[in-house]
């Protein structure tokens, strides 16, 4: 079985200073100083692939995991870690500029990269925190001609079959899937990528990602929207602190000041 994982390296947005958000405009926001991380849903996607690999290999089936990503950054540390935990091949598509808000274009580029790989299933995160379009998985599945299963919380390999659990908003759906499909991981039951041991890291020290240049112009236009403005919203709430020497004092004052809402 061949698994193709799509992942994105993003800035850890929790570390961005308030003044940097305030100075943002349509050209973007300065995130150059911010630590990079694998986008949280993509991280869960890679861990899901690794768990399928663990299960399938226990059942006697060989699994190969290929991971693809886009961007011009030097992400060697991330790549080494992914190789160490069990990803066998990584393709990095280089872009002339970041394409945060063009999901249809991104899906075209990812689809071209996917054309370099054999796969039985594709795993992506449901959306990234920065662009937050949530559409790339659907458009990629459309371009690849395979079904898209979104909001996946768990994907298990049992008796030669893939069993998927999805959040549906008003419940969950469990089903067996019988075809190559794209699984967009949402709030997963296994959200964090496993740690690599030093021994695993040393074993893959000579591996590196393959870099592929992509012609983006072939994917411009179409269903992409034009970004007109990017602005930081001023906070509408002003905090009033409840004073008191003890927690009991503060609790009493809170209930006294807001009886209509708090006291039931």
């Amino acid at each position, binding site marked *: 079985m061949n698994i193709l994982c799509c992942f994105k390296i993003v800035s850890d947005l929790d570390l961005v200073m308030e003044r940097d958000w305030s100075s943002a405009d349509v050209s973007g926001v300065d995130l150059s100083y911010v630590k990079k991380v694998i986008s949280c849903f993509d991280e869960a996607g890679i861990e899901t692939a690794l768990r399928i690999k663990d299960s399938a290999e226990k059942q006697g089936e060989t699994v190969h995991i290929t991971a693809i990503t886009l961007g011009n950054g030097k992400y060697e540390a991330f790549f080494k870690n992914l190789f160490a935990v069990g990803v066998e091949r990584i393709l990095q598509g280089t872009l002339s500029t970041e394409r945060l808000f063009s999901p249809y274009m991104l899906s075209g580029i990812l689809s071209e990269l996917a054309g370099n790989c054999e796969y039985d299933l594709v795993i992506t995160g449901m959306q990234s925190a920065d662009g937050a*379009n949530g559409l790339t998985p659907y458009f990629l599945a459309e371009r690849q001609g395979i*079904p898209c299963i979104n909001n996946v919380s768990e994907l298990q390999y049992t008796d030669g079959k893939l069993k998927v659990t999805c959040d*549906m908003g008003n419940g*969950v759906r469990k089903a067996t899937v019988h075809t190559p499909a794209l699984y967009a991981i949402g709030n997963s039951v296994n959200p964090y990528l496993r740690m690599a041991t030093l021994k695993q890291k040393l074993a893959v020290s000579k591996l590196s990602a393959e870099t592929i240049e992509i012609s983006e112009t072939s994917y411009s236009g179409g269903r992409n929207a034009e970004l007109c403005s990017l602005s930081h919203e001023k906070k509408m709430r002003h905090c009033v602190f409840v004073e008191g020497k003890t927690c009991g004092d503060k609790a009493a004052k809170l209930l006294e000041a807001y009886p209509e809402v708090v006291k039931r």
Partner: protein
Amino acid sequence: MKISVVCFSDELLIANSLLSQISVKQTENSIELWVLGGIDDTQKVKKLNIQKITEIIPSEQAHLKEPVCCADAVYKCFCRHPVDVIVLPSGLRGDDLAARLSVLISGGCMLQAIEFSCDESGASVRKPVYSGNLHATFRFETLPLVLSLIPSPNEEKEQSNDTPELARFEAKTEPPAWLTNIEYESTENGDLLKSSELVIAAGRGVGKAESFRKLEELAEVMGGVLGGTRPAVYDGKIPRERMIGSSAAVLSPKCSIVFGASGAAPFLAGVEKSKLLIAVNRDPNALIFDNCDVGVIADCNEFAEALLQKYRNG
């Protein structure tokens, strides 16, 4: 400009709120409502500010649970009655349906929008990006467009006295052949969270499991429901269906009391529509205090115990 708001039958009031959020700067326009699964209570129809409602009925009632069937049914209705813009209420179900529809009709798409307006030359959509730290405005020159809009419950218009025209569209749907052994399980806790007027939200800063249990007890005595941040859910302290945030439940209760959450933007997106937002945190510099109405600097466990004592003592 023809616009259709699409919702499920249990989302009629939410759809009514969406209708009030749509701004059309054009004289020649029409807005109608498409209800998936039909309307079971005709009294509900009278509360809607709409002139025409189309009930979309799939081949089987069970198909309403399957996103592929729902998208197919709406797509067939769209093919028969084309519109320029389709609007759905944002949420896991609405976002998924919007994306599937945009693929089927080869149209533009935007999920989790907060504002939408259109004129003769196209449509403008505003939505949170960068974990809600920034708002982006996008322009679509080419239609059709499908978007999911986050409902604003405070923007309901006065009710119309007119009874809307009711039409029925029967769509032939088939479940996807590539899925078998399908089981659907409803999660009542998630619904409870969305319908509660008081929400207690717990973050990782609450600490031990026993402190979370205390908050559960507090929520019960206060007549509210306990939810949690993503880290608290991933630590196993709160059930997954009670996760609050931009990628989970987006709430608009009368009051939210947030215990031990730093105030990261994705979580705040889930509680920022609360009428009153109270934060409890031992760190006076916690970001949550920049985004709430009332702040309590205290240990979460001790303050929860103090509140419980007040309730126990009447």
